[in-house]
């Protein structure tokens, strides 16, 4: 982490960039926040550890409009989002200095809570260079968890240790994937339509319409969201009937189809723990099946299958009912 701080300070001192976007220490050992750093003393609070899961690429939409260059710390999977934002002309590459930061998987405090860990005073074993278990010092005694058991779900289907776009890389990364990316999707595809409906109904009925998924999503970069239109009956903040939320989530999933890099931020931030990434991953799986393997954000020049046309494209009638097979 010190190497990263030194380098960012140096980039500001030599005028390469005016500011940096990284993570600021929280008041709990697990709640660092995305923040801007400009002056040398700002870096006293800089942190980069296992709980720095937030994908900072979307912050470059606004930061890219500021005077002078901005350095941004991106983990390998975040660089896919950044590439996709370039593809959509939403970020200014010229105004960005990308520091690819090392990653050995990011952590989810909810996993600790589910394991009954509470009253946390301090946490060790979450350093970026570390290796081994995570130890919680709590009011109720010392608790341990394996690093991988504490990882965000998305890190179990890691996209790999390579940054797909960067100006320089600091720190080592590790491919933390140990699960099949489409396993959950296949499980849902195998359900009967009634079971599938019941599954999504029970998950989506928890939605409180806080819009955190939308606001954090790097693919949701519309200047004004259709759900923020005050003349629209299905406006952002109310669920008129108990399952009205489905409309919001399904429209959103369609809108990001072919553009979603599967960064997993939607599920990370959902206060109700709704596995929102499953919608997007279903689209990704279908795109792979019907148009050949495609990873949004891998190559900013690549044509997305959904904005391309060939005479060999799948006919809608052939796609209908595919989930039942």
């Amino acid at each position, binding site marked *: 982490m010190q190497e990263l701080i030194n380098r960012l300070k140096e980039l500001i001192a030599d005028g390469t960039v005016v500011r940096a976007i990284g993570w600021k220490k929280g008041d*709990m050992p697990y709640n660092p*926040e995305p923040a801007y750093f400009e002056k040398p003393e700002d870096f006293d609070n800089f942190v980069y550890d296992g709980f720095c899961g*937030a994908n900072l690429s979307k912050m470059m939409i606004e930061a890219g409009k500021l005077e002078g260059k901005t350095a941004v710390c991106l983990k390998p999977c975040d660089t896919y989002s950044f590439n996709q934002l370039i593809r959509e002309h939403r970020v200014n590459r010229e105004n960005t200095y990308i520091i690819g930061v090392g990653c050995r998987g990011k952590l989810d405090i909810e996993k600790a809570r589910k394991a009954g860990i509470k009253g946390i005073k301090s946490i060790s074993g979450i350093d970026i260079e570390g290796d081994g278990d995570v130890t919680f010092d709590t009011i109720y005694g010392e608790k341990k968890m394996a690093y991988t058991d504490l990882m965000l779900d998305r890190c179990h289907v890691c996209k790999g240790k390579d940054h797909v776009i960067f100006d320089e890389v600091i720190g080592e990364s590790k491919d933390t994937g140990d699960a099949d990316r489409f396993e959950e999707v296949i499980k849902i595809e195998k359900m009967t339509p009634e079971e599938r409906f019941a599954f999504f109904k029970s998950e989506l009925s928890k939605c409180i319409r*806080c*819009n955190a998924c939308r606001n954090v999503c790097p693919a949701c970069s519309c200047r004004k969201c259709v759900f*923020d239109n005050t003349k629209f*009956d299905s406006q952002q*903040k109310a669920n008129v009937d108990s399952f009205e939320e489905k409309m919001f989530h399904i429209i959103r999933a369609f809108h990001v189809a072919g553009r979603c890099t599967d960064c997993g931020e939607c599920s990370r931030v959902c206060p109700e723990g709704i596995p929102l990434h499953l919608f997007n991953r279903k689209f990704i799986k279908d795109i792979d099946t019907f148009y050949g393997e495609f990873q949004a954000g891998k190559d900013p020049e690549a044509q997305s299958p959904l904005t391309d046309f060939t005479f060999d494209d799948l006919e809608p009638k052939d796609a209908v009912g595919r989930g039942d097979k």
Partner: protein
Amino acid sequence: MYSIAKENLNSLYAAIAGSYDLFMPIKTAGQTNYGFWKEGAEGDIDTLKTIRSGKDAFFPQVEQLYTVNREIVPADVAAGDDAEKAANTPIRTKLNVTPGKLVDQDFVIFGMRPCDVRAIEVMDNVFLTDPVDSYYKSRREHGIVVALACHEPEESCFCTVFGVDPADPSKAKADVATWMIDGKLYWKALTEKGEALTAKVANLFEEADADAKVEEEKAYIEGIAKQLPNADLSLEGWGAGKTDEKFKSEVWDKVYKGCLGCGTCTFVCPTCQCYDIKDYTTKDGIQRYRCWDSCMYSDFTLMAGGQNRQTQLQRFRQRFMHKLVYYPTNNDGMFMCVGCGRCVEKCPQSLNIVKVIKAFAENK
């Protein structure tokens, strides 16, 4: 005092639900939220913090206020039997307004934590002062609150900062106070409403001479509460009359930057009570409903002229000024935060009221 073994709680829920609607923490799809209990539901009073607070009991996220429908009055009816007159009478329409139904039956809110009970007092100051909100009032009159002590407070809790006692729900404005100690729920009615509820389910209880046990539990909880990382959070500089000083502070510009502008903090908060009133278009009219609003949203208090808060800095400042300055100014110094810590746990960007208070303390 009475007691009931933890494994018999389902029969207690069933017995309460036999006489009342029972609103309590229920686990669905892996998360615990308040909901109406019915046979087969998984009541969960072990989880300390429900994701949504108990405020839904009195102030639901969406509430129908009234419906309006347009009724077409046929010309012949309007004109009586006079056929010639009928032919010359335009179709007339009549507007029917049907008010939403007020709650008129007692219902039970079970397992509410002392912080959430305090939050009811915060909302009372808003909804029960002139002009009294009849929808809220009807729920308050009919709601019977069974409060539950917090056996093991968590690091995100800071209720003691606002004078809430997690150890003693009998100090909260509840109707029944309960404690879960060593696999038994101890039950003490505090009000007439609480006595009436107790009488209905008394056959499931055992008499318990457990004052000493409860005192021991209270001491245990108080001991934990003192060790919480934010137990000593200072509110110095906040409160009534601090509007100018705090509003003009440059600290806001430093603390808001990570804010996504989502509504998570406002929607999980037990004291946030801003709402919007909207119309949903139906076949022949409208359904007028109100729904929680969030000061974090770009259309919050948007009027035809467009003059609402335009930047996220302004919206962010509004939320904390309301809780820590404006509300206390209008309510004899009472803060609009009860320290439940839901925002501490749920903000996607890890911003929260504690960090705001600390940032101001550091930048004095």
